[in-house]
C-alpha cells in the first residue's frame, strides 16, 4: 500500500526523535571520551592533536592510585557485607510473616528516599563523635547503608522467582533445613546473589556524594580523589580516568549480561 507524504514524514520524524534521545543519553560520555584523547593540557573540545598521554598520567598519579585502592577495599567490603545482610533480610521478608514486616521493609528501602549527602553527613557526625572519622569502617558502613536496598531487592526478587517445590522436594528426600539451604536454595539463588553483589559493587565504587563526607585523605575513594583533583587542575587526565571508568563498568555489565542476564541484574525481569 502506498503511503502518503504525511505518513512518511511522520515516520521519519519519529525515527529522528528516537536517534536524538539516544544521542543525548550517550552525549556526555562521548564528549568526555573524545576530550580524553586531547593532547593539550586543558579540557577543551574538540581536540586538535590526539594523544594517549593523559591516560598514562592518570594511571601514574598517586592520589588516583590510592583512590582506586581505597575504593576497591571499600567496594569489596561494603558489597559483601550488604549482600550477607541483604540476603538475610530478604529471606526473612520472603519466608516469614511477622509483625512490623512492612515497617522493616520500608526502613531497609529508605536509603532510596534519603539523599546521599544526608546519609554521608549523618555518618560524618556519628564518626566524629566516636573518633572514627579517619577509618575505613565508617566509609564501609556508609556504603553498606546506601547499597543495601539494591541488594535486598535483587535477592528478594530471586527468592520470589525460586520455585519452593525444589526445597520441599529436598526435604521430602530427607535433607534437614540447613542441608536444603546449602545444596538447593543457595546454588539456585547464586545468579541473583552474584548480580546483587555486582550491582552493589558498581554503585559503591561510583558513589561520590556520601563518600565526600565520610572519607579522609587516607581513605578517599576514586570519585573523591577525582573531585579533589578537578578543583585544582583542569587537564584531560580526568577525562581519561572517566573513560577507564566507563570501560570497566561496561565490562562488568557485559559480563553480568552474558553470564547472568542483564534483566536479572537490574531486576526488571519477572519481578512481581
Amino acid at each position, binding site marked *: 500500500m502506498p503511503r502518503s507524504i504525511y505518513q512518511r514524514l511522520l515516520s521519519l520524524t519519529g525515527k529522528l526523535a528516537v536517534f536524538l534521545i539516544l544521542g543525548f543519553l550517550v552525549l556526555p560520555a562521548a564528549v568526555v571520551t573524545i576530550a580524553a584523547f586531547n593532547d593539550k593540557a586543558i579540557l577543551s573540545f574538540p581536540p586538535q592533536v590526539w594523544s594517549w598521554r593523559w591516560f598514562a598520567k592518570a594511571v601514574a598519579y598517586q592520589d588516583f592510585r590510592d583512590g582506586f585502592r581505597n575504593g576497591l577495599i571499600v567496594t569489596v567490603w561494603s558489597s559483601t557485607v550488604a549482600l550477607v545482610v541483604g540476603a538475610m533480610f530478604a529471606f526473612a521478608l520472603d519466608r516469614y510473616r511477622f509483625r512490623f514486616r512492612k515497617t522493616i521493609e520500608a526502613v531497609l528501602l529508605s536509603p532510596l528516599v534519603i539523599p546521599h549527602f544526608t546519609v554521608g553527613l549523618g555518618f560524618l557526625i556519628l564518626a566524629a563523635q566516636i573518633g572514627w572519622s579517619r577509618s575505613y569502617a565508617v566509609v564501609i558502613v556508609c556504603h553498606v547503608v546506601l547499597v543495601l536496598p539494591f541488594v535486598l531487592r535483587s535477592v528478594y526478587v530471586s527468592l520470589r522467582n525460586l520455585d519452593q517445590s525444589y526445597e520441599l*522436594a529436598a526435604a*521430602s528426600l530427607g*535433607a534437614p533445613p540447613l542441608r536444603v539451604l546449602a545444596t538447593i536454595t543457595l546454588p539456585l539463588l547464586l545468579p541473583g546473589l552474584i548480580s546483587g553483589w555486582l550491582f552493589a559493587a558498581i554503585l559503591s565504587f561510583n558513589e561520590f556524594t556520601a563518600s565526600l563526607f565520610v572519607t579522609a585523605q587516607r581513605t578517599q575513594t576514586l570519585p573523591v580523589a577525582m573531585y579533589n583533583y578537578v578543583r585544582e587542575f583542569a587537564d584531560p587526565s580526568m577525562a581519561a580516568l572517566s573513560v577507564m571508568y566507563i570501560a570497566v563498568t561496561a565490562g562488568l555489565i557485559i559480563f553480568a549480561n552474558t553470564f547472568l542476564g542483564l534483566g536479572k541484574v537490574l531486576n526488571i525481569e519477572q519481578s512481581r
Partner: protein
Amino acid sequence: MNKAADRDAKVSHGSIATDESVAVRFNAVTKRFGEVTALNDVSLAIKQGEFMTLLGPSGCGKTTLLNLVAGFLGPDSGEILIASDRMNDVPTYKREIGMMFQNYALFPHMSVASNVAYGLKVRHVPKRERDRRVEQALALVRLTGFEDRTPRQLSGGQQQRVALARALVINPAVLLLDEPFSALDKNLRVSMQVELREIQRKLNVTTIFVTHDQSEALSLSDRMAVMSEGRIRQLGTPAEIYRRPCDRFVASFVGDTNVLRGRLDRLEGTSAVIAIGAARVNVPRGPLMDAAASAPVDLFVRPEHLRIIDATEACATSGTVVAHVYQGGHVDIYLECADSSRDRLLVRSSGHEAMTRWPVGSQVDISIATDEGAAFV
C-alpha cells in the same frame, strides 16, 4: 527388608489401636486456613502396598491431605500415622516419604544421577552402594544411559521418570504423587500411568495419589476416596464408586451420568426398586432410607446402561435424537427427553451403525439396565 523390619520394631506407642497392615492412617484430622476449613474431621486408613487415590475438585482438601502426610503442613487437630508412628511433630525430612511433584521439581543444577542420588547422599549411604542403587532406580524407570544429562535436556515424560526414580530410590514408607500426569499430553499420560502402576505393584510401595481427573482415578486405584469441601464423601474400589455412588456429588463427579426422574416403587431388603416409566431398576437402599413409598426420586444412571430399543419392549422413557458424537470405539447419542432432569440424555452405543439407525430427529424409546445406578431423594 531391613527398613520394614525396623519400622515394625518401633510400632505401637500410640494411643490408637494399630493394625500391622495399615501404612498410613488419619485420625479425625482437621486443618483450617484462616476462616476456611480445608479438612474437616477426616479419618482414613491406607493399607500396606495399596494404591489410594484422593479424588476431588480443586479446593476439596485432597492436596492438603497429601501435604499433611509429607509434613509440609501440620494438622490443627487429629493425628497422622505412618507405619503406626505418630507423625504430627516429625519434620518432613525424618518421615521416610517419597514425593513426586506436579512440576517434578527436579533440581535444575544437578545431573539426573545426582538428582536420584540426593536422597541417598543425605542419608550417608556409602558411594559404592549409592551408585548401585541409582543405577537400579534408573533401570527401573528405563532411563539407563541418561545419568549425565541435566533435567532441562529431558522430555516431560523422562523428567517424570527421573522424579519417580528419585522418590523411589530411598525405599520410602509411602509414595506421594501430586497430580503427576497433568503436564503430559494424552498419549504419554496413558503410557506413564501404566508404567507407574507396574512399578508400584512390583515394589509393593504404599501410594497416595492426588488427582482431579476421575478417569485417572478409576483406572489406577486399588481404592479411592472421593472428596469435596474438606470431607471424604465416599471411599471404595473404583468399581464400587462408579457403580454405586453414595450421593449426588459422587455420582456426578465420577464418570458421565444421566439423571432421570422416577419414583420409589418398593423396598426389598437391602435394595430399592425404582420405577421409571414401564421399567423397574434395582438400586441400593442406603440413600433412600427415609423415603416414603412412591416418593419422587432421581435415578443416576451411566450412559452405557441406557439402551435405545424397539418400541415393542418395556421402555423407561422416550426422547428425540439431537446429536451424535462419534468417538471411534463408540457413539455418544444425545437425546432430548422429558424425564431427564438435566438438559440432555446421553446414551453410549457401541458400533457406528447407531448413527444411521437412529438419525438426528428420530423419536426413540429407551430401556435401562435393571441392576445399575443409584437413586437419591
